[in-house]
């Protein structure tokens, strides 16, 4: 049986729904805390924007010579919405074609996109954390300020916590569904 099962078809709709939430919720968030910021400061990464206390963070980062974070510098904010839209359109095609192989391929596209995004995110963080202005007022020998890709890290007086936000969790959910359903479809085809 090469035909996609009904649960598989339902999952396609759910996955598309999950991806659409990214238009309304941030993907990722980085929280910072320091003694003089008891309320914490935060940055949200959306598919097409960076929001939160970006100006405050830029103000602090200039002491260590980190480049300012500007939305305009990220071409990802243009490509990512397009890529996700294309992914949703592909999902509709999967729904219409109703072939397991198409569903597997669609999952593959998702995983590639997710992997690439994480790598890209890490690359940006590395760039911001390491390429510091040599004339910065505060220079601590050997110190880099790359925030964690995911998880907790202490940098000078700041603690940073990086994790998925609502949109990100829905994205992860979409991935979990895609992988889970693929396995489900694969096993079902073997049984039969």
């Amino acid at each position, binding site marked *: 049986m090469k035909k996609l099962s009904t*649960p598989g078809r339902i*999952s396609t709709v*759910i996955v598309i729904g999950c991806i659409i939430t990214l238009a309304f919720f941030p993907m990722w*968030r980085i*929280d*910072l*805390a*320091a*003694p*003089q*910021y*008891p*309320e*914490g400061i935060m940055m949200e990464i959306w598919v097409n924007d960076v929001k939160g206390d970006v100006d405050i963070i830029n103000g602090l980062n200039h002491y260590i010579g980190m480049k300012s974070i500007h939305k305009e510098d990220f071409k990802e904010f243009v490509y990512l919405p397009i890529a996700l839209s294309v992914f949703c359109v592909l999902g509709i095609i999967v729904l219409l074609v109703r072939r397991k192989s198409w569903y597997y391929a669609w999952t593959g596209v998702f995983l590639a996109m997710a992997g690439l995004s994480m790598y890209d995110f890490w690359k940006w963080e590395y760039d911001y954390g390491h390429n510091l202005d040599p*004339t*910065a*007022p*505060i*220079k*601590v*020998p050997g110190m880099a300020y790359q925030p964690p890709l995911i*998880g*907790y890290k202490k940098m*000078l*007086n700041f*603690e940073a*916590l990086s*994790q*998925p*936000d*609502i949109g*990100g*969790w*829905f994205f*992860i*959910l979409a991935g*979990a*569904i895609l*992988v*889970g*359903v693929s*396995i*489900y479809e694969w096993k079902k085809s073997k049984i039969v």
Partner: protein
Amino acid sequence: MLKPGAFWNLCATMTELNNIKIITHKYFMKNLSIVALSLVALAATQGCKMKSTESAVSGDAASKVYVAPGKYDEFYTFVSGGFSGQVSVYGIPSGRLLKVIPVFSQNPENGYGYNEETKPMLQTTHGFIPWDDQHHLALSQTNGEHDGRWLFANANNSPRVARIDLKSFTTEEVLEIPNSGGNHSSPFITENTEYVIAGTRFAIPIGNAEASLSNESFKANFKSTVSFIGVNQESGHMGISFQVILPGMDLDLSRAGKGPSHGWFFFSTYNTEQASTLLEVNASQKDKDFIVAINWKKAEEYVKAGKAKKMATEYYHNTLNHETHMATSEIIKEVLTLDPNESKDFVYLIPCPKSPHGCDVDPTGEYIVGSGKLAALIPVFSFKKITDAIAAKTFEGEYYGIPVIKYEAALHGEVKKPGLGPLHTEFDGKGNAYTSFFVSSEIVKWSIKDLKILDRVPTYYSIGHLMVPGGDTKKPYGKYVIAYNKITKDRYLPTGPELAQSAQLYSIEGDKMQLLLDFPTIGEPHYAQGILASKIKDQNVKIYDINKNKHPYVSMGEKATKVTRVGNRVDVYMTAIRSHLTPDNIEGVQVGDEVYFHVTNLEQDWDVPHGFAVKHADNAELLVMPGETATLKFVPKKSGVYPFYCTDFCSALHQEMQGYLRVSPKGTATPLKWGTGKTDPEPVAAK
């Protein structure tokens, strides 16, 4: 207490568990909804949270700061008012505000800088300046201990030093500092109050000369000066004994040596890069700036030997006399200057990492702590090693002709990884130092001898100065350390964008520092001084003797009251005593007259000031102490009847302590007449 990391691990474990479920469960679809729900629930709670800062008040903190009603605090602390320009007085350990002493800013509350008597206190070569930025304080010392005579205060913006009398808690003297760009490195004091120091924070061209702001011009024309202000040990009167002219750089803070290092003064510097723009970056480039060490005893010898040059200049010296109750200004026209390139071997430089701020001398006088604002360590210099290095000429070079001692030759040792952003250090007299850290917002206690870190406590938030009562003397009291913070954020009920500044009191009696109390302060507190209350309280002036009042416009009793006119100047000789003003009916004043109300408080009892205010006077009120005379100037702009009254609730019939001034149109023939208690006062011919 779960750390954020632990929180994260928990989250990660949850996610992992879910993933395992997804992959392994046979009846996957049934469980998909559960997985989805748990993921969404996680998303809805915004995942993991950062830990929040919390204050750690523990144990018997409350009882340690409780001073029962009617009981006195153990210490007076004098706290700089920062941009308020004033000095505040707090009782410690209660943290109760006792008084705000007006120093460099006008104070409408009591008429300082508004009444005719105190206007001269704020006069400068650039006219009347109603405000300043007050940063540091120094109590007078004898044998390296606080003696309770005077308190000195700096004006950071328009360079001045003030002297506050600790019998009356009033500003008695303000001395302008010539050839200074901003008096930050001030008013630190020698162990017998020989000198109060005034070092410029901004290098500027000497003699108020104009010059280009380019970097070449800075290097060629800009200089830094240190003024040694001599203090008359009887009267307290200040005068600039001499100025040392240094290469252009920014003098930040300073301390006099004591004990073995008595006779020396130490200054921290930044911007030895000599940048004139974007100092944030350009003055942070060198790995080391300098501690400037000046042998002032040797400088004195040069001055005595006639080596100092007279320089024509101009500066104001304003003094308040407690018998005339009036301040007068004197303009001084010259200053003696010493050039270390001409008179050699009394100025030396010691390299100190990364724009040092604090430059603090320990109670023994042997150790000098430099706090590089941007450094990852605290260097501690040894006075003995410095003098040995000078004797052996262990120099690494010269800076504009001034010998630079080798860093290692002067170094006692370094405190490693103490914290971030070290600023200031105070001492407890038991061999321990307490350093404030702005960036990591904490106080770190360390041992001077072996440079080991002993304890650290958070401050809320971003501490600037800190103060141990007596902590800058030979004998610190070693009981408390007080943090003066720059940010309060969530510590108090919010009051809009502008929040209270704060102080925090810690006990340092035990091995570990213990937070006891938070209290808000006026303005922005910088440095402070603390002294045992017993050293001051018994010398307190309660009243001014009316019989010694030599004010030119005093009314010695109600019978002496009168109103006189010379041209358009009207002088009202008025008295105040519970519960009436004499005269309280005044007629014959015309629009445009300059009316001077000279109010003498006839009371001779403690805590009975009288206030005086006139409707629509474009001036402040007067607050007149018992036995004192103060003058309010009023130029009426419109004719009419102007009520005046006592503003200080003085007695049961305080509300009745009021009167009227009749102002007639200009040119009216209304005769001058006055009185109290007569329904129709006799007219007197105008002079």
